[in-house]
């Protein structure tokens, strides 16, 4: 009996170890791939706190892929597309990347958020796979030559905002309210303040809040008011910004408000009194209300397909696909090339193309992966976005 139990335990342990090892044991990715198709993968948070951004990117890519496939594909080859959830977490993101690799991915559009992107770019660099992030803004997220980005980097946004304010003489005394627990927000704030100081603007107050305390801003608003700020710079997302605008109104504080691309979407926020945002200026590559024909078509198609107005993340992702199409056509990439060869070909052709997209005109890339495009400043006037520059 005792022997039996011993044997049973050992057998059980072996079975466990085996089942552990056998889980998803097929390594068929590369072999089961259809040789006449490009396999493009996407990674982003479709669940969790940042789900709104991940879902927008997922849908943006989907729309572009459907359009490209309908129009005959890239170099005559159709695109297969798969999107994996990473919950905005670096560790999960690497898992998502490995899952996509097993699926047969040849090029990656992602990741959506910065911290996971830093982790994933390490992997794509090791595999020499082409990576194109629509929206990861931190500097490190495209630190290798195989990675490119569609959006502005954090420093670029901070510098552009400060330059715009100084050049147009909008204000001299500036207060900043930012989210210190968010890399995006604190990253922009840092370069903004550096640039503002070097341009002779005065930072009268710089007040932080964190993700755990983002409902009551009375202290920050009061400090900005006491410091006599003419302009308040808000490098944050529109959800918190809407609260700040409402609470400042109650406190009788009415400076010029200036935001960055996270502000896009504030007018369509449920329960927000749009008149509070009157005069608000922000820097953005894309607004859904733009009169431009290309944008109008994109917004209409997106709304039809997903029943939702696209935010700039969707536009960035949509542009990514068309940029890749352009680069792949330029380099004559075919699906039978190895992942590494595709990457090397695209690395060169990416720096040679110039493209007009939804998020900018005459966009080109340098070898370090940064796009050069002109930011647009929009202002809210009469409940609508008006393009200033």
């Amino acid at each position, binding site marked *: 009996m005792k022997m039996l139990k011993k044997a049973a335990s050992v057998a059980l342990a072996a079975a466990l170890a085996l089942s552990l090892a056998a889980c998803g044991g097929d390594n068929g990715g590369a072999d089961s791939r259809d040789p006449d198709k490009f396999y493009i993968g996407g990674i982003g948070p479709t669940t969790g706190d940042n789900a709104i951004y991940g879902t927008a990117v997922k849908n943006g890519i989907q729309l572009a892929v459907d359009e490209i496939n309908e129009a005959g594909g890239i170099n005559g080859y159709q695109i297969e597309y798969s999107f994996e959830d990473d919950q905005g977490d670096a560790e999960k993101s690497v898992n998502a990347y*490995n899952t996509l*690799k097993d699926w047969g991915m040849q090029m990656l559009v992602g990741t959506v958020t910065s911290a996971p992107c830093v982790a994933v770019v390490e992997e794509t660099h090791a595999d020499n796979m082409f990576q194109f992030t629509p929206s990861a803004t931190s500097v490190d997220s495209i630190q290798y030559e195989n990675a490119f980005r569609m959006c502005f980097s954090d420093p670029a946004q901070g510098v552009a905002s400060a330059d715009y304010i100084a050049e147009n003489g909008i204000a001299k005394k500036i207060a900043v309210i930012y989210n210190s627990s968010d890399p995006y927000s604190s990253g922009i704030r840092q370069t903004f303040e550096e640039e503002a100081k070097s341009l002779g603007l005065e930072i009268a107050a710089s007040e932080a809040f964190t993700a755990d305390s983002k409902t009551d801003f009375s202290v920050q608003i009061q400090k900005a008011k006491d410091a006599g700020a003419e302009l308040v710079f808000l490098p944050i997302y529109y959800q918190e910004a809407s609260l700040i605008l409402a609470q400042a109104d109650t406190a009788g504080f009415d400076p010029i408000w200036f935001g960055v691309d996270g502000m896009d979407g504030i007018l369509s926020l449920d329960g927000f009194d749009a008149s509070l945002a009157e005069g608000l200026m922000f820097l953005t590559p894309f607004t859904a209300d733009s009169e431009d024909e290309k944008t109008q078509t994109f917004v209409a198609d997106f709304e039809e397909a997903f029943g939702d107005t696209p935010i700039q993340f969707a536009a960035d992702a949509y542009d990514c696909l068309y940029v890749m199409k352009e680069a792949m056509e330029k380099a004559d990439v075919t699906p039978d090339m190895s992942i590494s060869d595709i990457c090397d070909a695209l690395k060169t052709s990416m720096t040679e193309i110039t493209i007009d997209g939804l998020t900018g005109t005459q966009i080109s890339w340098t070898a370090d992966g940064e796009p050069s495009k002109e930011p647009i400043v929009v202002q809210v006037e009469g409940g609508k976005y008006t393009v200033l520059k």
Partner: protein
Amino acid sequence: MTKKKKISKQTRSNIITYGIVILAYIIVQTMINTGSISSLMEGLMVPLCIYAILAVSLNLVVGILGELSLGHAGFMCVGAFTSAFFSKCMRGEMQSDGLRFFLALLIGIAAAAVFGLLIGIPVLRLKGDYLAIVTLAFGEIIKNLVNVLYIGKDSAGFHFSTQDVMALDADGTMIISGPQGISGTPRDATFLIGVILVLITLFIVINLTNSRSGRAIMSIRDNRIAAESIGINITKYKLMAFTVSAALAGSAGVLYAHNLSSLTATTNNFGYNQSIMILVFVVLGGIGNIRGSMIAAVILTLLPELLRGLSDYRMLIYAIVLIVMMLFNWAPKAIEWREKYLSFGRKKKEAVK
């Protein structure tokens, strides 16, 4: 005679626990070498080791000491950030990567142990719900502290700030930059190191449990007053269990930091979500059952990844599986059913006796 038999039974159980780990390692390593394993599984091996270590170490506090701690991810965070800090500073300055990782490991473990000791002294005066809430708060404090910490290094030495990135000389680099955390940590963690750490963790926890100190710790759990009355130094033994557990969590943090090149402190990796997740491993695997918590950690880490095929329903199915497993393991009716119909249950144990 009976005593001898009992000891050997214990030893056998331990050998099985170690055996599972070694066997799993050998099988997986062979599969990696022959290339018959998916990239996903290969990439998951180090995280599996990390969660197994965390689950086993928390079991020491929850199962053996009998106190509920909800701040385990906080100790992991301390280990991760101190070791990543060291590795980032020393990257390129030390010849041997192995030695650098070993030192980083020691530093991470030591830092987590110190924090465990410092937190333990005031906190262990509490018990039950109070202890749980204070440890929960501790975990959050650590996470938030890391998020406002800016440390840079240049030729003039280290610069600290809790406000923003300070001006550094031309040759300076930022090491920790607030919410952006540490990026560019060398990826030194390998599956082999992970498995060795799991084995060391098991060795420490199992031997501590079976030692004189371990029996003292368990006596505190079973009856504090009785233990005190026979002269057991309650504070000492409680602190011992708490500190060892924190140090082991720190080693898991070191592995975590050196497995990814970007390290940020968020709710999901070092906040209460993670602490609760580790507690779920322990409860599901069996409070006080070392082997069980290790297996539960492996299964629950694998599950959401293997369910990726279900896309949007993934987390829903995961939650349902969690509930079903919990019921199957712990509901009295389910235990009764298992005893009746499954060959390996409590009944069989009784039959052996």
